[in-house]
């Protein structure tokens, strides 16, 4: 498969950029030892070497006539690279100095192979080799996996190279960033600032991982004769960039001091272990020295007290001073950090237990876990009950208030739109209202049953209807099951009969009778 030239150019530039990031870190480290050497020269030489290596590898692959004697052209490239570096090292010198130096080469070969040139060339050569290997592996991405039996998959090789490069870059640029002296100071405060070459390396590396994935999938799809939709590659690139941006945003949002403190805590734990080991060492030493001292006393060789073992260095578990107070930005970052950390931990635990059914079964039979589970279930039951009670009370309250309001307003038009339960309650409240006007108010202390008896005493002819209506009300008010439409119909009839009987009473006179 031929990859379009834009994509190849981007790949070559990315690879060259990543390699030169490592070279730049190396140059900074070297400068700590030899400050007069040029960082720019080393960086540019490796950038050029890496890009040239990728490009020339591709050219040789595309032109079969060059492949037979490829080693010659590659040797020529390396030779040319050396003289280019040598020439670049003269930048800033006058022509006379340059010519004198060149003239001295035959007599003094060290003038040609001076330390800076050789160092820069070695770094450039390593960059050149790394770029060639990477270009080779990138080409392998498009070939069938069974073409190179016994070799690791190209995608695996590339990702591993990215990892190794990342580790080397971290170490080299880290040392170059903080300096050699600070490296030995374990009490120093965390170093701030952005290390740009590290940023570029990991940004480009993550982007290239996406491209490697795309190439791997594309090869697999081609083998399976899968049609790839038009514009697919472009969308892949866009989505990759968006994802990297989001991941970068998350990374920037998260505070780093927790990681530092966490590692400090780990160091503290290591120190405590060290203290324990020291104490054991002291005790064991005493046990050995005491008999020796006693023996020497018996033999009369010495009157001196037994020698104490050399004290161990005291562990440093002191907490470093913390900045007082948090700005709002720090608070936001802290909040995000803990949310994410808790989420990740919870998810990891859940996922782990799910993927290990045996562990889950063992956990289920573990007594403390069972106790905790029962406790949780009991708590959940109580919570559910409390919620249900609260909901019912609220609903009853709402219904009661609304019905009373509706009854007072004398409105009936809403009946058709209400539930059967509410319609039964409405009829009962309506009767209460009518009875109150006729002098039979229901006291606050009266239960429905007690009120039923008091009405029956005043209106014995409606005893049966009142009993039925009260039963229907109690059922609608306190039951959970559905109220039937038949009950609603009967309730209406009973209420009508009671209201008819109530109308025979004088207004406000019944209780007085």
């Amino acid at each position, binding site marked *: 498969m031929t990859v379009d030239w834009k994509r190849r150019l981007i790949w070559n530039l990315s690879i060259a950029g990543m390699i030169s990031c490592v070279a730049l870190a190396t140059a900074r480290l070297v400068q700590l030892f030899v400050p007069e050497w040029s960082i720019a020269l080393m960086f540019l030489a490796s950038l050029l070497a890496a890009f040239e290596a990728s490009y020339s590898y591709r050219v040789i692959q595309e032109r079969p006539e060059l492949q037979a004697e490829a080693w010659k052209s590659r040797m020529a490239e390396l030779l040319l690279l050396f003289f280019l570096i040598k020439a670049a090292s003269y930048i800033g010198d006058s022509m006379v100095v340059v010519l004198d130096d060149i003239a001295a080469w035959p007599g003094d070969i060290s003038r040609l192979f001076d330390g800076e040139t050789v160092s820069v060339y070695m770094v450039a050569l390593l960059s050149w080799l790394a770029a060639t290997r990477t270009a080779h592996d990138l080409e392998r991405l498009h070939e069938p996996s069974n073409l190179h039996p016994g070799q690791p998959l190209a*995608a*695996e090789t590339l*990702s*591993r190279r990215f*990892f190794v490069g*990342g*580790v080397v870059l*971290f*170490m080299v640029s*880290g040392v170059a*960033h*903080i300096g050699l002296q600070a*490296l030995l100071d374990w009490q*120093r*405060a*965390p*170093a*701030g*600032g*952005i*290390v740009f070459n*590290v*940023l570029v390396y*990991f940004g480009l590396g*993550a982007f290239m*991982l*996406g491209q*490697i*994935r795309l190439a*791997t*999938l594309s090869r697999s*799809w081609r083998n*399976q*004769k*899968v*049609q*790839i*939709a038009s514009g*697919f590659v472009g*969308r*892949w690139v866009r*989505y*990759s960039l968006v*994802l*990297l941006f*989001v*991941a*970068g945003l*998350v*990374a*920037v949002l*998260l505070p*780093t*001091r927790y*990681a*530092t403190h966490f*590692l400090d805590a*780990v160091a503290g734990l290591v120190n405590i272990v060290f203290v324990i080991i020291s104490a054991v060492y002291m005790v064991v030493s005493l046990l050995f020295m005491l008999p020796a001292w006693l023996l020497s006393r018996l033999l009369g060789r010495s009157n001196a007290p037994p020698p104490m073992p050399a004290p161990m260095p005291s562990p440093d578990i002191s907490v470093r001073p913390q900045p007082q107070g948090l700005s709002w930005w720090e608070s936001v970052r802290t909040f995000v950090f803990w949310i*994410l950390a808790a989420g*990740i931990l919870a998810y990891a635990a859940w996922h782990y237990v799910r993927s290990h059914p045996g562990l889950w079964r063992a956990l289920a039979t573990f007594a403390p876990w069972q106790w905790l589970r029962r406790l949780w279930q009991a708590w959940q039951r109580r919570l559910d009950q409390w919620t249900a009670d609260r909901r019912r009370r609220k609903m009853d309250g709402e219904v009661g208030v609304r019905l009373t309001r509706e009854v007072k307003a004398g409105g009936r038009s809403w009946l058709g739109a209400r539930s059967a339960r509410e319609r039964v309650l409405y009829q009962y409240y309506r009767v209460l209202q009518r009875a109150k006007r006729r002098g039979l108010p229901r006291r606050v202390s009266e239960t429905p049953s007690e009120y039923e008896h008091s009405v029956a005493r005043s209106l014995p002819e409606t005893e049966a209807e009142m009993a039925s209506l009260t039963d229907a009300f109690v059922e609608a008010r306190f039951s959970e099951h559905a109220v039937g439409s038949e009950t609603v119909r009967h309730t209406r009839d009973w209420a009508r009969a009671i209201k008819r009987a109530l109308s025979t009473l004088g207004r406000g006179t019944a209780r007085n009778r």
Partner: protein
Amino acid sequence: MSGLVVFVLVLTAIAGVLRIDFFFTVVYFLIAIYGVSYLWKQWIRRGVSVKRTFVDHAYLGDRVEVSIEVTNAAWLPAPWLVLHESLPVQLAAPGGYRQAFSLRARARHAFEYSIYCRQRGYYRLGPLVLDTGDLFGLSQVGRIEVEPEPIVVYPKVLPLASLGLPTRSPQAILPARSPLFEDKTRLMGVRDYQRGDSPRRIHWSATASVGRLLVKRYQPAIARETMICLDLCRDSYGDRQRYAATELAIVVAASLAHHVALQDKLPVGLVTEAMDPLQARQTFFFLPPQRERVYLMQVLEVLARVQTAQDAPLGELLRRGSSELAWGSTVMLITGRETVELYENLVYLRRMGFAVSAILVQPPHRSEAVEGKAELADIPVHHVWRERDVELLS
């Protein structure tokens, strides 16, 4: 991607030793790439759904358009999806339909492909598999599967200019659309309702007492029902061209059923014992004679999916096939081997009051053993060995 966890741990350790804040940010960046990729993939897996639409019955030679609609209900775009539809080789090129694409958030995409119904049969389209994953290969590929769906390709139906069905009905020559075949004043019994039965035949009181639909069976005045007995026993066809012969036998059965039901407008049924791919076992099919077009489609559907069976004796097939037939019905046997036993069975049916006819799917020659048997029994026997022979059935 193997090694990422180790990589992150090593980087964390270096960052801890060097105590550089920015290095922790880089570590977070790598973890965030993994986390966001993982969550993205999970959301897409939950949000993406697939629906397949097609006409699930087709005639031989039809081109069926299959539409696959992929919907992304998630609020995130699906970075990559690979659709893989497995298709039977009889209907499409090997390998099925495959497509790699991406889908925007809250979007849907429809794919269409066509299958060519080259061969009758009962097939399954699918399973349809939709793979998705993250952009960096950090987590395993997620998979969404859609169950296979059946499609029935009816067998070829050839025109029969004149079938020449033998019948004893005096009304056979009458051009009436609904001739009287049953004496409705003489109820013979009831049987279970079958699709295609007229509602007028339902015995409501019996239905009410039993609790399932029952229809009346009347004593026949004279019957013009035709029962096609298709012999699909493997041993009934020659070894050399067994496949071609059985396929031709099925074509003959389908053509006869089609002709009797639509041209002659007479009831037609089918009895056969064959391998049924739908049930994945040998099955005895008994479709009693009915006249409705929808019933003919049932017959054709059975003929579409049957395959030869290992052990399906012809005598048993004829016995079971004729057991519920009305007196005077026509029995048309389609088989691939002419034997003495075959004629004995046919003569027996004839003595039971059925009109009998045989179609032999074999080259037109007779062995000495059966020479004269057909003439002796006065049974019309037709030989079919090429498709155009079917048109000459008369």
